[in-house]
């Protein structure tokens, strides 16, 4: 008898659990299914990169990519309140586009040949470069070669660290962490000498209130990163609309304002707005 009770109870719990998940996925279908029908639009962004795409404590999103995405969405006919921002991790970006989880992605997404096989890109809308961030009072690193025997930090699985070690400073002492914040703590505590990734991301961190004046960008331009807006392969209509929106954004000054708002305090010398389709190798 007792056993039957236990079985019945666990069956009930399981049923409850299953229905709970079912509800969860229903909601999700509801929001993404209606994208593109003039009601809601789902856009992929980063939520943990200050200056690029960041989820702020009040649950809103800020950053250059977010500003660009909002402007483009507005040109496509969506109000700011109709935009559903969704986090797209670096490794998931192609899949999210292919599956249609998002309409398009603006998430420090560099255009390259490998990605072009899977998705299409509008833009580019920003030309970034791999750079390093150092303490403001540290003048010992004047060229990438000076990174030899220095403690260099990057996040696990990123190509930036590999690039430095393979080509520029083979003797750099590399530390990898799960996120940039851990690297920054080390930089602040002087056990790490430099943090490397795209200068736009570094500028975003350096612009944060707590950090202003503490760090500086070295300005090395070690690579060219053409940030584009990723969208479904073959959607020429959407690509054209987004490109038009980007052109307009540059011409009416919104682009400059977005750069200034998001990267300004870091004294980040951005390249001028790139021409649509002009990919700098």
């Amino acid at each position, binding site marked *: 008898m007792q056993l039957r009770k236990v079985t019945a109870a666990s069956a009930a719990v399981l049923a409850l659990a299953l229905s709970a998940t079912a509800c969860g996925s229903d909601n999700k279908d509801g929001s993404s299914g209606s994208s593109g029908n003039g009601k809601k639009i789902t856009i992929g962004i980063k939520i943990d990169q200050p200056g690029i795409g960041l989820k702020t404590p009040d649950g809103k999103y800020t950053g250059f990519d977010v500003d660009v995405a909002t402007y483009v969405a507005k040109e496509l006919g969506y109000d700011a309140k109709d935009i559903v921002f969704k986090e797209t991790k670096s*490794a998931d970006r192609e899949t999210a586009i292919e599956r249609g989880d998002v309409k398009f992605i603006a998430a420090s997404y560099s255009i390259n040949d490998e990605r072009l096989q899977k998705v299409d890109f509008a833009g580019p809308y920003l030309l970034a470069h791999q750079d390093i961030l150092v303490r403001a009072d540290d003048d010992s690193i004047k060229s990438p070669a000076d990174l030899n025997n220095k*403690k260099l930090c990057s996040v*696990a*699985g990123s190509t930036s660290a590999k690039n430095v070690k393979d080509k520029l400073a083979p003797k750099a*002492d*590399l*530390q*990898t*962490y*799960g996120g940039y914040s*851990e690297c920054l*703590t*080390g930089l602040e*505590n002087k*056990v*790490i000498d430099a943090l490397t990734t795209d200068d736009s991301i570094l500028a975003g961190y350096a612009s944060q209130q707590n950090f202003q004046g503490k760090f500086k960008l070295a300005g090395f331009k070690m690579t060219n990163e053409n940030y584009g807006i990723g969208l479904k392969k073959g959607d020429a209509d959407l690509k054209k609309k987004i490109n038009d929106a980007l052109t307009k954004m540059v011409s009416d000054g919104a682009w400059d304002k977005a750069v200034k708002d998001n990267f300004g305090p870091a004294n980040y010398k951005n390249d001028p707005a790139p021409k649509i389709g002009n990919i700098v190798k």
Partner: protein
Amino acid sequence: MFDFLEGYDLLGAFWVTVQLTVYSALGSLIWGTLLAGMKVSPVPLMRGFATAYVNVVRNIPLTVIMVFSSLGLYQTLGIALGADATEDINFRLAVLALAAYTAAFVCEALRSGINTVPVGQAEAARALGLSFTQVLRLIILPQAFRAVVNPLSNVLIALTKNTTVASAIGVVEASYLMKDMIEAEAQLILIALVFAFGFIVLTLPTGLILGWVSKKVAVKR
């Protein structure tokens, strides 16, 4: 079929795993025994400390302890454990974190071993005039250790697997390499099987040998 392994230092990565396991096993055995000693000691404060230590440490994810050892101990308090290169520092920090974490479980296992020793043993020892440390060292612990070979071998196997967490602070051990390989190579299932096999090779003999040892040294009661 196994072409994808070329260009990766698979054995090297597993060697790091083995080294992590061995050093932290030794560390945790020493620290765990000390903790167990404190836990049954006559000084109330030490008992309290050991209890608190075990309760706190085993309720935190190892990942958090690992990150703390890097961010807190190394970055903030400047403890590099006598190493210069980042690779060595990270390795030593990982050993420290693993030992600190595993010691809590060694302590618990030992305490349960102490529980299996009949009361008469301790009473007889005291009747002979042995002090607390003598009772513990000469009478109780030797019997307790024999009783807990099996639980300790489980702790050791768990430790072997827990070394994968060292990748959180950038130690290039087996799971770190596996993640790299999955991103670069297409033979997903094969990669997974290779690494699973690697860990089975490491853990199965441990379990079997120590299982045999445990039968050998068991105290017949």
